[in-house]
């Protein structure tokens, strides 16, 4: 366990002991990373903040599941990922209902994806905007794998830990995302 995760393990243990200040310190240490991670998945700041709050509520309710001495970060990221996917599913269902109710086409995918690098976010670059639209249309798991490995530059093992899966699955998802992205951009 690294020094950082040792600190978080200590804070988590104190949080479980009912120490409010430990929660505040844990929040300051972990929430920015969780928010950035969720932002990559949902691509919308307001929704990401909602997911963060929901994640922290779930963490609070499930804190008795914590194992003392363990690194709480991968667990927190797993809760955040599942909460984000649940929200995305809800959003998708709501959009489908809206389209069924009112035969208008669904809204255009957003051209801005918060998890993408600044260079690609330039709205005045048509190629960048097209790439972002394509990236945004990928399934969340593939998009996350691509962003973690190609944009953040994490190793497959690190990305797997962050995504709560195996390095093999990350490699496969990133490859599929890359192939899909290439097709979408060429179209």
């Amino acid at each position, binding site marked *: *366990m*690294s020094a*950082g*995760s040792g600190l978080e393990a200590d804070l988590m*243990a104190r949080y*479980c*002991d*009912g120490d*409010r200040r430990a*929660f505040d310190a844990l*929040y*300051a240490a972990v*929430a*920015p*990373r969780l*928010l*950035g*991670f969720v*932002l*990559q998945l949902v691509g919308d*700041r307001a929704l*990401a*903040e909602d997911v*963060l*709050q929901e994640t*922290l*509520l779930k963490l*609070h309710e*499930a*804190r*008795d*599941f*914590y*194992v*003392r*001495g*363990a*690194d*709480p*970060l*991968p*667990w927190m*990221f*797993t*809760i955040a990922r*599942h909460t984000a996917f649940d929200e995305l599913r809800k959003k998708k269902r709501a959009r489908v209902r809206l389209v069924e109710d009112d035969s208008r086409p669904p809204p255009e995918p957003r051209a801005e994806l*918060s*998890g*993408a*690098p600044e260079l690609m976010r330039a709205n005045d670059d048509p190629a960048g905007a097209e790439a972002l639209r394509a990236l945004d249309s990928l399934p969340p798991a593939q998009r996350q794998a691509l962003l973690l490995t190609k*944009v*953040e530059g*994490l190793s497959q*093992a*690190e990305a*797997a*830990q*962050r995504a*709560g899966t*195996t390095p093999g699955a990350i490699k496969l998802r990133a490859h599929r995302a890359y192939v899909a992205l290439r097709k979408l951009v060429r179209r």
Partner: protein
Amino acid sequence: MSSELPPSGAPPSSLPPPSPALVARLDAMRPVRTRRPALQLAIVALLSLGALAALLTQFRPRVDVDATAVVIAAIVCALAFVGELWWALVPPRGQVLPLRPAAGARVLLVWLAMLTALVVAGHDAARDPAFMRSARACLLVGTMTALIPAALCLVALRRAVELGGWRIGAVVGGAAGALGALCLELHCANTHVAHVVVAHGGAALLPIGIFAAMFAWMRR
């Protein structure tokens, strides 16, 4: 695997404060007893084996087969039960969630090893004329026995069901099925290969599918 997680690629400019719902819960926060996986493992294993022993007193004992072979196969089933229970309840070192890589493949490999031991321990007895009826009874008894550790694991892992999904379910089912197979090995006198493969092997395999599907459904 390193557990150090570098900051995300898109650090948010400002952090929102905790929501009022969370603040209310924090204000009313009390210390909680954290999970002790080794203790849970001991409790689930002892209660399950105790229930199995109680169950076996109700059944007719086996008298017509080679006791050594039965004991060896029973030991294999018991080891499979405890080993898979370990995977289901005790997380890898430094982790919170008991998620193992290739959980499905691990469980199927253990099932295959257990089935091999059961078949080798059996003998070529004449085929039971009521084969299908006795097979159904074995499937039922094995699956019902499997419910005991599965229910206990469900209680122990209730916070992880949402996160683990079918992978945790398959491992729980594997452990539960191994206990079912152990029960049948100690109880059922029909050791014909076809019966052992279909009924006893099926009783060990069925909970894997059932609990993997159940945990996946509960996650949704």
